[in-house]
């Protein structure tokens, strides 16, 4: 028994010493960034109008009919809702403590794509005067399926493993979104001009991957040397069907 205690104490001391040694190393400056634009060539599919007539409270919130969001394009062939992240070369970091928000409003998910880090907390909010039933179709992470009547407090959630999770509402079949759970804290979602920027990157070599729900993934190697690695563009090939 005594031997066990001694060995455990020794192990703890060694582990503690290693931590102190690690902490003593000067951190690499995180000053670089990667930015660019997501665009397409070809003809993207035409988005379909969503008929929300069974939910009058949601119809009221949309002066013009809402369309599907699986391909949202903008000016100059830009693509919104692509997720761009460091797939290799990242040094690792702990998840931010600030919770992200995923809103259900007008019978739509806002944002359509929510990117997060493994272990990062996020809140699911129902801003509609009707019930929603949020059902993320996780395969690697635990799958759950929760009802959220109007006026209920936000649901708190987080995912322990990296996964691209489609999200649906069991009550309103047209509601569709994604939880993108990543191993890195260095990611971005392209905006309505297709632009993105991944900030606070230490200098180094990285593999950057862009994912889009309809067009798949693309990767490229990028070297960050202190300044902004501009022009890290991704071009997806779009087909109408």
């Amino acid at each position, binding site marked *: 028994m005594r031997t066990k205690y001694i060995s455990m104490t020794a192990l703890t001391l060694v582990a503690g010493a290693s931590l102190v040694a690690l902490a003593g190393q000067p951190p690499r400056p995180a000053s670089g960034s990667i930015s660019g634009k997501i665009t397409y060539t070809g003809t993207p599919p035409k988005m379909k109008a969503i008929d*929300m007539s*069974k939910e009058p409270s949601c119809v009221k919130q949309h002066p013009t009919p809402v369309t599907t969001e699986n391909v949202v394009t903008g000016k100059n062939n830009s693509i919104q809702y692509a997720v761009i992240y460091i797939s290799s070369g990242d040094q690792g970091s702990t998840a931010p403590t600030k919770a992200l928000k995923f809103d259900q409003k007008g019978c739509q998910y806002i944002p359509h794509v929510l990117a997060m880090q493994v272990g990062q907390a996020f809140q699911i909010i129902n801003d509609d005067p009707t019930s929603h039933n949020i059902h993320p179709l996780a395969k690697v992470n635990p799958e759950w399926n929760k009802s959220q009547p109007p006026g209920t407090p936000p649901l708190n959630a987080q995912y322990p493993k990296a996964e691209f999770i489609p999200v*649906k509402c069991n009550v309103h079949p047209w509601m569709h979104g994604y939880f993108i759970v990543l191993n890195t804290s260095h990611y971005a979602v392209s905006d309505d001009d297709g632009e993105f920027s991944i900030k606070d990157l230490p200098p180094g070599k990285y593999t950057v991957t862009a994912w889009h729900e309809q067009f798949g993934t693309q990767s490229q190697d990028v070297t960050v040397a202190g300044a902004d690695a501009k022009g890290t563009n991704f071009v997806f090939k779009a087909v109408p*069907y």
Partner: protein
Amino acid sequence: MGKLFAAVVTVITLVSTGIFIMRVWWLPQIISAHGASIDRQIMETMIAAGVLFVSSQLLLSLFVWQSSDTSRQRKIKTFPGGATPMVIFAVVLVGLEVLAMTFVGSKVWASVYMTPPDPDSMVIDLQTGQFAFYFRYAGPDGKFGTLHPDKINEGNQNPYGLDPANDIASRDDIVVGTMTIPVNKPILLTMHSKDVTHSFYVPELRIQQDIVPGMLIPLHFTATKTGRFEIVCTQLCGLGHYNMRAFLEVVPQDQFDQWLKTQSQ
């Protein structure tokens, strides 16, 4: 106490019969060609059941009233021969009534289900799934695309699992969540479910049809009045059943043509 019970039973019987006779809560308007025959049948059933209901309740009151006097040592009368012949008598009586209603009603049922649809019917492919109705029109080519269950994706508004990349017939299929039809035009619905049993119920059409997974269920009708009517699911199909509904829009032919044209673009 017995006399009070007899009086209460009589009052309940008369009030509930009065509600039916005065049509306090009555059926909604009829908007289908076959609706009147369904209503006639409902009426016949109602009268047959009503006569039995009223007479049995009043007899019950009468017997309770007569037997309520406990002051005298009365001998309790029983049905001639005891309980067994009484049960047989009741089963035969009710059985005959149900059989009679079945034979009379089957004519109306057959006129809706056993007659072939009009050859000029417009076909609408109706698909149900938790918790929505979808309606598919063949589009300008008049042909429906093939269904591929593995391609079903409601988030992308492809609830039928169409494959426009490889199946040309499916490219112009119109898939919508509201059923728009022209007035006075025979409609043939081909109904199927992608998960559990649902039901297509439009009270004004006098149609209530279960949609059983694995079956393709045809149903034809002609709407005779324009307007907007609710389509509801009447089979408890899961958590969102309460919210499973759609709308039927019956519009004039020219308005329908215009709508179809807009949808095809």
